[in-house]
């Protein structure tokens, strides 16, 4: 963790020494490693995404190498911290492509960072698996770009379906200032009609705001609200949840998959009770029935991550796991690192079981997940539980 | 015909009258001195005469133009230049550039030709540099032509301000305590410089505590006390005015030495006057 770069540099130096030896002693013995490039928001406002993602990548690259690598070649991870800044993401991607000459890129914690590098990977023709949420990444389909997490639109749909089943139709929205928040807000408004939902209030809060009671009071005073949906990640939703209880709003509160981690419950405390949100099965790994085909994947990842880093697993790290595994799978299928072949192989992924669900990629769907991949969860007694 | 006419001028600071109902006229070509104890309102008056302070009452007419309410740069553009008691030298520049700034009004040019550095501007710049150097020699700063302002001694800076003011080609020049902080030799040189200024056709207003200097060069004296006019007239008349002598000695005694310089000066003046 401390210095992949330094380690990489060291490795590279060693490789150079080895190459010199090889020149002297005869034909090369060792094969070039397969280079996985990555840029993640390890610091900055989206660090809670990038941090588990980077840890996951490091952990599993090490594991795969310990198991003999891929196609007899070792994996080498080259990861940079783009700190949530699209400009940095762009520069680092250029560096990955030009300087480090990576074979495939798995990264991009936020939509902004992902979208900033799309023109680059398209021109350079290098497979890129994004870990960011918004639907614009894969719609319209971009030849070299794939993504792992469920889209925000799917989250909206999942939530609205749940609301339908509870006979709600008048919804209040409250969203944050980030790209994720705004994109989800727009998607939810977009699909609301389809599910017969009426958006009766639409409030937002600002970056670093410490109190949202003003917005929530406005919602409370709006007539006929049956449920409230909060699109956001990080600190905001926790404050919203607390303020929500404080001013005593009694209708159900839905959160987005942006807060799908144990941390949210910790931050919001008792106020989180009864909050519902759509998320991957990872959060309720141990609750899954034994016959659930996803169970072994998520339980394994969860145990591996939690025993290694002594911290709670989050779905975000899970996306990195899925991304890396799909990349590896595709490289295996392609029989090498030829970029076009790897791209085709990713597009051909079918029935791949990841932490987020079953991936069925196609030429028109560069994400491959459907609504069944989402589970509706509810906070009960300070823990996530499946809504039956 | 008067060059500058001040009509019932007043300035209040939080209810205190720093200058009160003051009227006087200045004729061209003379050295006009304003004296009075500290706090008499001399510098406030000077600040109003250059637009730095806006008067609370009254009018300031320069030549044919009523300049009341104008900004400092408008006063300058009508031909009033000044120096400061607390130096306002541009310490981020060389001495020569300080004087060149004084040539601003004559040299001003369009933004485009400044950005593109037109040929005409380049030539004008050259001439400006020459003239600034000439002015520095004129005020006796020939040794500082290449110095940066922050490396110059106090006395030289005072003269630098005079050179800068001269560079604006003023009709009227206001000198605020030019001799303060100078040693006796430097002060003597100042007599000469002021004399040469009037020779150039510049009317000089001198605010000064140094009575030797004032009495030596003034044609006309205005005595202020508590913001009001105490006496005014030709130098000879004023120096013999008993009111002035009394005010000066009186104030010196009553203020118990707070105006040390003034006391010494006043005594000197008194002695001189009774000779």
């Amino acid at each position, binding site marked *: 963790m401390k210095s992949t*770069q330094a380690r990489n540099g060291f490795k590279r130096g060693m490789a150079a020494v080895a190459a010199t030896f090889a020149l002297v002693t005869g034909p090369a013995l060792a094969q070039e490693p397969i280079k996985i490039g990555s840029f993640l928001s390890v610091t900055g406002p989206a660090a809670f995404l990038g941090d588990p993602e980077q840890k996951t990548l490091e952990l599993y690259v090490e594991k795969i190498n310990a198991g003999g690598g891929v196609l007899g070649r070792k994996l080498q991870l080259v990861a940079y911290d783009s700190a949530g800044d699209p400009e*940095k993401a762009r520069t680092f991607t250029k560096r990955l492509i030009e300087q480090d000459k990576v074979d495939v890129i798995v990264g991009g914690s936020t939509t902004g960072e992902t979208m900033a590098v799309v023109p680059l990977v398209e021109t350079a023709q290098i497979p890129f698996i994004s870990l960011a949420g918004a639907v614009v990444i894969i719609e319209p389909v971009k030849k070299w770009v794939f993504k792992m997490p469920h889209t925000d639109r799917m989250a909206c749909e999942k939530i609205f379906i749940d609301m339908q089943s509870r006979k709600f139709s008048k919804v209040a929205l409250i969203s944050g200032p980030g790209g994720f928040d705004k994109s989800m807000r727009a998607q939810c408004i977009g699909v609301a009609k389809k599910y017969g939902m009426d958006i009766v209030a639409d409030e937002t809060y600002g970056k670093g705001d410490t109190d949202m009671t003003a917005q929530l009071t406005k919602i409370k005073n709006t007539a006929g609200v049956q449920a409230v949906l909060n699109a956001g990640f990080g600190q905001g939703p926790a404050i919203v949840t607390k303020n929500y209880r404080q001013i005593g709003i009694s209708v159900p509160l839905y959160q987005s998959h942006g807060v799908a981690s144990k941390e949210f419950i910790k931050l919001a405390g008792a106020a989180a009770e009864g909050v519902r949100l759509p998320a991957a099965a990872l959060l309720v790994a141990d609750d899954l029935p034994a016959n659930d085909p996803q169970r072994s994947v998520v339980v394994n990842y969860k145990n591996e991550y939690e025993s290694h880093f002594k911290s709670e697993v989050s779905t975000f790290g899970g996306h990195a796991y899925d991304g890396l595994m799909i990349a590896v799978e595709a490289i295996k299928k392609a029989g090498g690192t030829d970029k076009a072949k790897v791209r085709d192989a990713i597009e051909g992924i079918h029935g791949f079981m990841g932490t987020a669900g079953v991936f069925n990629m196609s030429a028109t769907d560069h994400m491959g997940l459907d609504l069944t991949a989402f589970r509706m969860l509810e906070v009960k007694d300070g823990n996530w539980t499946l809504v039956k | 015909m008067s060059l500058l006419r001040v009509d019932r001028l007043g300035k209040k600071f939080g209810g205190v009258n720093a200058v009160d109902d003051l009227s006087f006229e200045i004729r061209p070509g003379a050295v006009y001195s304003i004296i009075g104890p500290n706090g008499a309102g001399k510098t406030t008056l000077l600040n109003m005469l250059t637009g*730095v302070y806006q008067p609370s009452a009254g009018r300031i007419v320069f030549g044919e133009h009523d300049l009341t309410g104008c900004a400092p740069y408008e006063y300058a553009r009508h031909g009033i230049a000044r120096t400061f008691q607390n130096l306002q030298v*541009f310490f981020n520049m060389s001495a020569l550039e300080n004087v060149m700034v004084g040539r601003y009004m004559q040299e001003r040019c369009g933004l485009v030709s400044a950005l593109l550095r037109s040929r005409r501007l380049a030539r004008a710049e050259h001439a400006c540099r020459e003239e600034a150097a000439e002015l520095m020699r004129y005020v006796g700063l020939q040794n500082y032509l290449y110095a940066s302002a922050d490396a110059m001694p106090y006395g030289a800076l005072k003269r630098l301000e005079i050179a800068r003011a001269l560079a604006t080609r003023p009709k009227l020049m206001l000198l605020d305590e030019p001799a303060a902080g100078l040693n006796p030799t430097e002060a003597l040189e100042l007599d000469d410089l002021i004399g040469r200024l009037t020779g150039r056709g510049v009317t000089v207003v001198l605010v000064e505590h140094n009575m030797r200097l004032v009495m030596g060069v003034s044609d006309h004296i205005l005595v202020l006390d508590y913001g009001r006019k105490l006496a005014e007239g030709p130098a000879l008349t004023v120096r013999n005015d008993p009111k002035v002598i009394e005010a000066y000695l009186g104030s010196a005694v009553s203020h118990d030495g707070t105006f040390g310089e003034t006391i010494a000066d006043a005594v000197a003046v008194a002695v001189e006057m009774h000779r």
Partner: protein
Amino acid sequence: MISGTMLARLASPRTGGLLGLAAVIALLPLALTNTYFYDIAVLVGLNAIVCIGLNLLIGYAGQISLGHAGFFGLGAYGSAILASRYGWPPLAAMLATTVAVAALAFVVGRPILRLKGHYLAMATLGLGIIIYMVIATEDKYTGGPDGIAVVPFSIGGFVLQGERVWYWVVGALLLLAAWLALNLIESPAGRALRALHSSEVGAEVVGINAAEHKLMVFVISAVFACVAGSLGAHYSGFITPGKAAFLHSIELVTMVVFGGMASTFGAVVGAAVLTTLPQLLAAFEDYEMMVFGAVMMGTMIFLPRGVVPSLARLLATRRDATADGEGNGV
């Protein structure tokens, strides 16, 4: 005698410095072994253009602005929206945006520049934040926080693409910007700016309209930022509101002060160092921020006038040079 004046000319910042900068721009490609390095160089160039303009305002006229990223962002988004969304020719979009930003700077500059010191800092900061909020909130036009794609720059069918092409374009513009700035500084208007920095009263009483000059330089610096923003948007092909944010403003001011206030080439050096530093520090990973902060603090503590003027002064004292140690306009 002729060679003497020639030498003096070469040593002056305008001629000698520009030649030096041109030489660096011309020779740098020898060290740029792949397009990633070209990319960094282009970013340095764009930042340097903003900093040269900002330095006119901060370094020479002594007026702080913590909102220049706002103008940068307006330039970027103006180009993006007009060229990408409404299909204007990029050059026309850029010119229209620049004129609009200049007009905006002119209108808001007048009341804002009446403020002084920290109050001016606050007002410009507020202006920048308001611009940022509008860009981030009006997602119908701007794409919101997720940003917006920008079409490549093209003039009459010729498309500017590829880091190498951009390198020469930005290099040429950087030279132009430096030349314009140096000319301005050496002109009567430039002296007026430096004068009002040192003493506003002193400047006014020789006939300089301080407010007018502050406004002029404010508009000029806004235009520099706007043009660089517009170019940057076309170059990177994708922009987000982060470019208009408060932190970017701080970054720009830091570059100017770091390189050296009242030093055009200092602004270039500041932009170069602070743009490349995060790339160099990437190796420190989690420690990157700490090291970056420490480098900033250390430099400002030991070279308080900024890198270029402090080093120039050091050199000057070492050579025990002639009286002109300050080196205005360096």
